[in-house]
């Protein structure tokens, strides 16, 4: 099994008519994802390589039965796009767009929680997620992931996610689902949400968790793992040498007031029984050992 999405998930792409949305939307379809619709009020009635364009998400849901949405619209329009998706009946919203203002993120996170508690938001500023061999929603390169199991991956960083998928594939280890939760200050889906889903998924037997500096999501995940997780977890945290007060590329990757250091995160994870690699390669090797021990 996979978590959140599979081969039956029907996805509408908000921003499919833009160049980035079109590029990845078609790549996702080639991978096997059910890309059933795009939206654009000014291009309703047209199509993108055979994928119908509707004026609104509500109409796309009505006509196609889409349950998931993937958002590629520019940052200024993300807030409205997220609410349009939720109000249109979508229950899984993936926001790839980067550069969304933090106040917008905080607002629509809480608005969804309040008015649409059953909707899951992933991102913004994330690579999306892939259930190898079943569905790929977002910008992950599908062919670097080996389908099957037994590993589930959750990560705050896009390229380190790819690195992890690749390292596992080199070792002939498959992945149930790989979720990129994104590097922004208010991610819609947290490490804990993913750990919980992996813990409940029978095909996932071990989890790779890739963190980075900033915030306290890794520490919270560590506490959750200690209390609830029965499956082995291997982790890597980027940014050990990051100077305080500097945003390291991601808006959320910043050590401020002595908080959010990689060292503290790694200690919390180790304390929770997680095996922590010093670099992505070592994390891959640790996971290979864990998988071998699963038998």
């Amino acid at each position: 099994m996979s978590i959140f999405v599979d081969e039956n998930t029907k996805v509408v792409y908000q921003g499919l008519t833009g160049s980035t949305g079109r590029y990845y939307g078609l790549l996702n379809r080639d991978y096997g994802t059910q890309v059933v619709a795009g939206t654009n009020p000014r291009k309703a009635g047209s199509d993108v390589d055979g994928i119908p364009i509707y004026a609104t998400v509500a109409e796309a849901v009505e006509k196609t039965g889409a349950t998931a949405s993937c958002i590629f619209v520019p940052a200024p329009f993300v807030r409205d796009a997220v609410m349009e998706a939720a109000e249109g009946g979508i229950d899984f919203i993936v926001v790839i767009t980067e550069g969304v203002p933090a106040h917008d993120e905080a607002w629509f996170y809480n608005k969804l929680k309040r008015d649409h508690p059953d909707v899951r938001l992933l991102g913004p500023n994330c690579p999306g997620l892939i259930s190898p061999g079943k569905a790929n929603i977002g910008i992950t390169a599908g062919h670097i992931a080996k389908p099957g199991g037994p590993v589930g991956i959750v990560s705050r960083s896009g390229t380190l996610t790819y690195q992890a998928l690749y390292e596992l594939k080199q070792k002939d280890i498959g992945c149930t689902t790989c979720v990129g939760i994104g590097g922004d200050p208010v991610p819609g889906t947290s490490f804990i949400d993913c750990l919980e889903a992996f813990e409940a998924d029978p095909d996932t037997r071990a989890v790779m968790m890739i963190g980075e500096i900033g915030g306290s999501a890794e520490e919270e995940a560590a506490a959750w793992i200690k209390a609830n997780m029965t499956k082995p977890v291997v982790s890597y945290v980027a940014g050990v040498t990051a100077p305080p007060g500097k945003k390291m590329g991601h808006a959320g990757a910043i050590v401020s007031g002595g908080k959010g250091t990689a060292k503290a995160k790694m200690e919390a994870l180790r304390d929770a029984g997680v095996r922590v690699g010093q670099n992505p390669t070592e994390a891959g090797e640790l996971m290979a050992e864990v998988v071998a021990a699963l038998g």
Partner: protein
Amino acid sequence: MDLFEYQGKQFFAAYGMPVSPGEVAFTVEDAVAAAERLGPPVMVKAQVHTGGRGKAGGVKFAATVDDVRTHAANILGLDIRGHVVKRLWIEKASDIAEEYYASFTLDRSAKLHLGMLSAEGGVEIEAVAEENPDAIAKIWVDPVVGLTPEAAAAWVDAANLNPAARDGAIDIVQKLYQAYVEGDADLVEINPLILTPDDRVHVLDAKVTLDANAVFRHPDYEEYDATQSRDEREQAAHAKGLQYVGLDGTVGVIANGAGLAMSTVDVVNQVGGQAANFLDIGGGANAEVMAGALEVINNDPKVSSIFINIFGGITRGEVVANGIIEALSQVDIDSPIVIRLDGTNAEQGREMLAPHLSDRLMLEPTMLDAARRAVSLAG
């Protein structure tokens, strides 16, 4: 984007918060002229993007215009935690009865806005939080609901300020919240917020950090972008639109993706070296971006080797290789370059690089091998 104190005060004033009249000065003569217009006594305050100004001698009371001349001469050029003072804020001095603290920022863990208010102002809030956490009244605000007048009043009451400050404080915290939200700030902080002997509540200092992602809503913020403190390398990288952070080491780093770039800096450190920078060229890795990145790193005199770490996801290895080869034909690089190229079509990419390899351009199979080579070349 960090604002100077005076920019922060102008930002607050636009939302109706009471601040003192003042003027910016870049020279001693400017400072003296400003003091004459304002009328002494005035405060002479260093404008730098760091705390600890008072302790460093960057904030002085001037009873007379002559005092202003002396203090301005001393403070201009002063080094405060690595920030050299280039501008002063000359402000009409205020009488202080009591000092408070007020701020709003995002609580990433609660995913709500967090307001902090304390009767113990004028000192570092981290110290108050450490020694006397009960002295800080906290409020978590749901952005959908906002800060209601009732909640603001209850919060102010919980902070145990002087009763004379109650109404003024309730008014100011609501305006502070409005400035925080409408202004797209990551942080708004007033320390100290003062009560004057004649019972007015007044903003005496301002620390504001704005969200660079929200500039599309605030075109006037470009002015602040121009006054950010960046070293020369960071300025050059910023002009090219690169995600760059200057560090102190000798190995120049180029990687695609923020996580991989951070990881690369870490790995350089793990194998005994030190990175000169963090640089994320993003997903594209085309010749133009690569050339720009190499140029920025090449202009850093400390750099003695360069480590290019690329993992091709959607971006294919041959495109990356082509970008590197083209970039090298555009820019003359002084330091040897070590490349690690992995991921999609990495094999083709490495084949394309093969005829260009020399003791100035090397290819290593893994991230660790490449880091070791780059570090040994850096000496």
